[in-house]
Structures are given as C-alpha cells and as structure tokens.
C-alpha cells in the first residue's frame, strides 16, 4: 500500500503499466498473445478446432496457477487436478440440475433428480446439491470452494513448515483421495462416469456452434484477465516476498516475515485459477469426469507448465497450448504410436530446454532479435540491470 501512495502523484496509469507489463517488451508479448487468442485462432480454425483450443486454454489456467505457486513461490503442487475438478464439478452440478427437470427425466423412478442418482437408488436430492440450483451461488462456490479446500489442506503443512518434495507428495495423495471420494460416491457425484449430458446454461444451449464460439471468447478473455491479475500480484511486495522466500527462505524468515500466510495465499490463489479453468472446461466440453481429478492429469498440468517455462505466465499458456495440440496432432496421425512421440517430446524438452519455451525465447530468440536491431531501447539492457529494474522498490 505504501508503494501505491508514494506513486499517486506520478501518474497512476504509468504505475499500473509498469506493474502489469514491466516494459515495452511485456506489452508487446501480451498483445501478441491477445491477438493470437482473439483474432488468429478464431479466423484460422473451424468451430470444432476452436472448441478444442478452448479446452486447451482451460489447462492454461492451471498452468498459470502453477507458475504463480511453483515457478514464483517454489511450492510445487502435484495436485492441481483437485481444484480443477472442484471448479469443474461445481459448474457441472449446476448444469446437471438444469438438465434434470422433471419433464426430461420422467422415465426415472424419481423424476427431477440427476439420472445417475436414480440409477444408484438415491431418491432425493442430497442437501449439498441445493446451492447449485442458483447460478450466482454456483459462481461464488467456484471461487470459494477451491480456496477453502486449498486453505484447509495447506494451513497445517505450511504452519509446520512442510515444503518442497514432501508437500508435493502430500498434494498428490490428496488428489488421489478426492478421486476415490468422487468415484466411491457414485450416487452423489456420478462415480467413474462423471457428470455427463450437460445441455444448457440458464436456458442457453451450450452445445451449439455459436455458443461454443462465445464460450471460447469468454475463456480467452478470462485467461488474459487472469494473466494480468497474476502479473499484478507478482509485482506487489507480496510477490517479491514470495520470490525471496523461494530462493532464500531463512533470510526472509529472519527479516521478520511470517511465511505461512504468504504461502497459503499463493496456494489458494493458484487453486482458484485452476478452478476457473475447471468451470470453463465443463462448459466447453459438456461434461465433467473424475479422470480430470486424478494423479495423472495433475502431473500433466505440471508438465504443461514446465514445457512453457515455469516462471513465465505467457510461457505457461503457450506450453499448455503446445503440449495439448501436439497430443491431439500425434494421436490423430498415429493412433497406435502417439504415446511414444508424445513422451519423446518431453524427453527432448527436458534435455535441451530445461527452462521450457520461455527459456528458449529468453536465451536464444531474444538475442537473435536484438542482434537484428541493436538500438532497441527495452531489450539491450544486460541481465543485471534487468534484475534491478524488476525490483525497484527493494532499494
């Protein structure tokens, strides 16, 4: 807050600009992503491919969250599928209730409840489904539920200073627990089948081509917005403390910071981002499945982030897009062999691009660009100055 008031006499717009984009290069990169998402893809892809891209972008939400809590705060979570699922299931429960009106479920022994409940001899709607009758409440829960979940799961560990690999393994066990919980309670959550056959959102058919296009735009704009929010968080003192504790935990502790709160915050923040992705996933794919809550998808999500570059928000988006596009392309071209190609790609990336796509850009392409135009003002600064520029308030 101090920093904010210090700068109110200088232009607020300039401050915001610095916080969100750092420099011209940041603006260009952000605008480039916006153009790709909002113009290039919709113009070049047919609705089916656009819808697929929208699905990939849902994973990008998780990847951004991981950039925040893993890349920039050093908390590796192998359980983001849990929050992705929480968001996705909230949305799916709302849509399922809307799809299960008494007329269209007249064939069931108890009309008016979701079909899978009827198959499992559940005869009335369980109490925890009632909030999902209301759309505003559902939206609120998409944000609140994962945050509460993340808080409850992390508070004891962070208080007990459990971090690093141990925490990563704990998140993994939690996501496995949630998977068993969903699959085991098939009368309440649809079990292994998931919640399927979702049709309308407040009467708006989400399966039509125009709806899928609209949802793609909503998803892209939300994603861009989330990137800006994340940028902002990173540029505040909070972001700096997180970065500092990632690299020198003890030093930050001895400087008098209570790291528990910082860590809980960023973990919850990442969880909420994942949940937004999950909710958008349900809307665009038309169902929610426990397959997205398991250990494997959670690790996949970490892979997207690693491929994109774990410290780069934009890199994470490109990573999620690239990995999923590769997966689709390989499996369509070689249905029997694609797994090998997919795996080989990861090995190559880990071997030759340890910093991911963002590292490729920073280390190679950037130099190459600046060789072409040596007088560019933003990029010619050597790395050391760049660092100082990044932390102007630290002085």
């Amino acid at each position, binding site marked *: 807050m101090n920093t904010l008031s210090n700068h109110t006499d200088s232009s607020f717009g300039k401050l915001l600009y610095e916080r969100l984009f750092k420099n011209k290069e940041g603006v260009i990169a952000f605008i480039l992503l916006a153009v790709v998402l909002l113009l290039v893809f919709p113009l070049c892809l*047919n*609705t*089916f491919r656009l*819808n*697929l891209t929208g*699905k990939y972008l849902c994973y990008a939400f998780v990847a951004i969250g991981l950039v925040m809590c893993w890349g920039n705060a050093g908390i590796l979570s192998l359980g983001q599928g849990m929050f992705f699922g929480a968001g996705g299931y909230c949305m799916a429960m709302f849509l399922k209730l809307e799809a299960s009106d008494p007329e269209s479920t007249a*064939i069931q*022994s108890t009309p008016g409840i979701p079909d*899978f409940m009827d*198959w*499992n*001899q559940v005869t009335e709607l369980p109490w925890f489904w009632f909030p999902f009758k209301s759309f505003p409440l559902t939206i609120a829960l998409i944000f609140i539920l994962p945050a509460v979940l993340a808080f409850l799961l992390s508070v004891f560990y962070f208080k007990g200073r459990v971090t690093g690999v141990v925490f990563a393994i704990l998140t993994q066990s939690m996501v496995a627990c949630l998977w*068993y919980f969903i*699959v*085991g309670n*098939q009368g309440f959550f649809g*079990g*292994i*089948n*998931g919640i*399927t*056959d*979702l*049709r309308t959102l407040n009467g708006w058919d989400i*399966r039509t081509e125009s709806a899928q296009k609209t949802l793609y735009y909503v998803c892209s704009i939300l994603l861009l917005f989330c990137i800006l929010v994340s940028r902002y968080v990173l540029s505040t003192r909070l972001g700096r403390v997180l970065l500092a504790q990632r690299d020198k935990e003890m030093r930050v502790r001895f400087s008098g910071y209570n790291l528990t709160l910082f860590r809980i915050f960023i973990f919850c923040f990442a969880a909420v981002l994942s949940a937004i992705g999950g909710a958008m996933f349900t809307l665009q*794919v*038309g*169902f929610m*499945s426990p*397959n*997205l809550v398991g250990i494997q998808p959670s690790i996949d999500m970490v892979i997207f982030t690693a491929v994109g570059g774990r410290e780069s928000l934009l890199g994470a988006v490109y990573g999620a897009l690239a990995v999923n596009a590769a997966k*689709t392309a390989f*499996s*369509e071209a070689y*249905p*029997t062999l*694609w*797994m090998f190609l997919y795996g080989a790609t990861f090995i190559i990336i880990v071997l030759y691009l340890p910093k991911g796509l963002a590292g490729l850009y920073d280390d190679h392409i950037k130099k190459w660009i600046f060789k072409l135009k040596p007088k560019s003002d933003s990029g010619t600064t050597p790395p050391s100055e760049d660092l100082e520029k990044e932390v102007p308030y630290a002085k």
Partner: protein
Amino acid sequence: MKTTNRKRTPWGQSLKALLLPTLMAGSLTAAEYPTAEVNTTGLAVTDDTVTVGQLHSITGTMAISETGSVEAERLAIEQINAMGGVLGRQIKIVQEDGASDWPTFAEKSKKLIIQDKVACVFGCWTSASRKAVLPIFEKENNMLYYPTFYEGLEASKNVVYTGQEATQQIIWGLDWAYENLGARTFYLIGSDYIWPRTSNKIARNHIERYLAKKDPKCKVVGEEYYPLGHTNFRSLINKVKLKKPDLIYSIVVGGSNVAWYKQLKAAGITSKKYNLLTISTTEDELLGIGGENAEGFYACMKYFQSQENPNNQAFVAAFKEKWGADSVIGDVTQAAYLGPWIWKAAVEKAGSFDIDKIHAAHPDIELPEAPEGYVRVHESNQHLWSRAKIGKIMTDGQFEVIAISEDLIEPDPFPEGYQ
C-alpha cells in the same frame, strides 16, 4: 457372412482373381446407388468408398480389453470389403485412440463426426466412455455401434447395442442356477461402479421377487462392492465361508479378477465345494487369471469361443489367421464383430447411408449366421435378441458350453419390476 468360410491359402492370388468379378459386381451396384441419393446429409461417402470411424482405447489401462474389439471390427470390415463393400463402396476406416480417458473419447468422437464426417462409428467399451460420447452422437446425429455387455437403462436412437443389456445376462442365468445347481442362497459381489451395481440390483430383485415365489428359501445372504483394481479379497472370502452360499454371484471386473480367483483358490473355495457364476469373466480375463485357478466355475454370456457351429469355427479360424494363433475371443469381441455386419445390413436395407434411414432400417435386421448363433435387432430399442449360454471354465482357459437358452431373450433395457 459367408466369406468367413474362406481360408487364405497359397492360392490367395488366384482367390483374389476369383474375387475380382465380385468386386466388379460391387462397382456396378455402386452405380445403381448414386452418391447424391444414398448420402443426403454430407457424410464421407464417395462413388467408391465410405469412411467409418473406429474409436477404442489403444493405449492406457483399457487397451488390453478393447484390442479384441478393434481386431474383430477390422476383420469384419475386411471381410465386407472382400465381398464388395457396402452399396458397392469399399469401407475405409479412420481410427482414433480414446486413450482410456473419457474426455479424450468425447474429443475424438467429435473429431470423427464433425471433421471426418464418418458414416458411423464402431467404438467405446466402458459405460463411462459411452456416456461421454453419447450427447455428441445425439446432437450431431451419428450412429455408434457399441459392443460391450452393459447395465441397460439406456436406449438411444443413436446407439446400436450389440452386447447384452443386464437382464439378458442375469435373469436366465439365475434361473439356470436355481434349477441346475439347486442355488437357494446367493452372495452378490461386484466392483464398485454402475454396471455391477445395476446388475446386482436386478439379480437381487429377481431372487427376492421371483425365485422366492418358487421356493421361499431363496434369499440374498450378502452383497459387497470393492473399488476397481482392488486386490485383497481375504475378508470377503472369510465372510463367504461363514455364510456358505449355494451360489457366489461375481461381477468383479478387470485386473481385480486375477487376485479374486487366485485368493479364492488359496482359501479352498473351489468348484468342488462351491458354485460360482460370473457375468464378467470371459476368455480374455481367463488369459490373466489362468484357467486352472478358476476351473469348474460358471459364466453366463451370449458367446463362447468354444461354441460348436460352423459359423463360429470359420470366425475363429479367420480371426486367428489375421491376428495370430494365440488370440482368444471373448464375448465382447464377438459382439464387436457383429457391429459392421449389422451396419451393412441396415445400409443395404435402407438403400442409404443417412443416419435417420439406417435408424429406421435397424428393427428386425437378422444375422442368421453370426458366430454366436441367430441374432435379431429388436423392434424398437436397437439392442439384440440373443440366446444366453452357460459355460464352465476349463483348465486351458476356455469354456465348455453346457447350456443354451431355448428362446431368444428379449433385450429390455428398462426392466419393469427390477428398478
């Protein structure tokens, strides 16, 4: 289906030459059915080819089960092509991998239908994958040929169910056990998901409402579920020993089967002292379990590889020739083999590839020479009338067919009195 009798010999080349006139005849029929007339909805049909989709898991945990279906469908399509194709058009396959992941199934089915505009899709295995793709088939109006025995409670106009729905497998089998094994007390066991639960619900209703009328002693003495992949059945086995049921009714699925039968044997529960009837163990699972571990137990299916009829023998021979002498053919594999033949019959009956016309043509389509025996598509629900069979497990992992239902059993996906 007569070409199933054809054996590939060193004379293969001359056989091809012999077949050539047939192919020529095929192209003549293609001229009789101009593309503009047989395809009014923009499916991938040209003057000499028709493209269909195939969507199974080739990778992931389900691959081991679904491979048999992939192979059977390919065999059927190859045989149909050798006969001259469908309406004079050769069938081309676009294969996609569902990767044992239900969202991937949804993605790939969209790709097949929207992008490739396939004329129909042969695919899916688990109920979860079918549930994931079903809304897409209904919205885009395409046809899925689904091979697996399943829980029922569904009759979409966009799915042809070539496997049995639950009542077809359960009721007759329980009646058979009641009469032939003297079963009065039943212990129901299943993996914990929708198919075993629904199946056991039907079994329990049949035992308590119908069998109990014949003999009031009939009752269910236990009903238990274990998660998919569960491998420790010892506490369950102790309970079974305590209750001493006349019949253990098992719907344990997938890899759990191996642990289940081995632990039963280790605990002394063998066919000498106990009767066990399963509706979830086929030749495919027995490969993993080992016939000696389950010897003498019973399974109720609609097809066994060992069925003795000329059509089945020709089918088994053709399958082994194409996919290797070691391959085994389970119930679902045979059901998958029926899919392309039913589709061919429906297209020819309708004189069109249009989905609505095929749908209208499906009722009463007969396959008199199917490997399992005569089958017929139901008048209204796109399931098959078929005969149930009881097989007894032998040490070599095959079944000895010991009973076949006299009548064709009607598919009844929404059974009244059993819900």
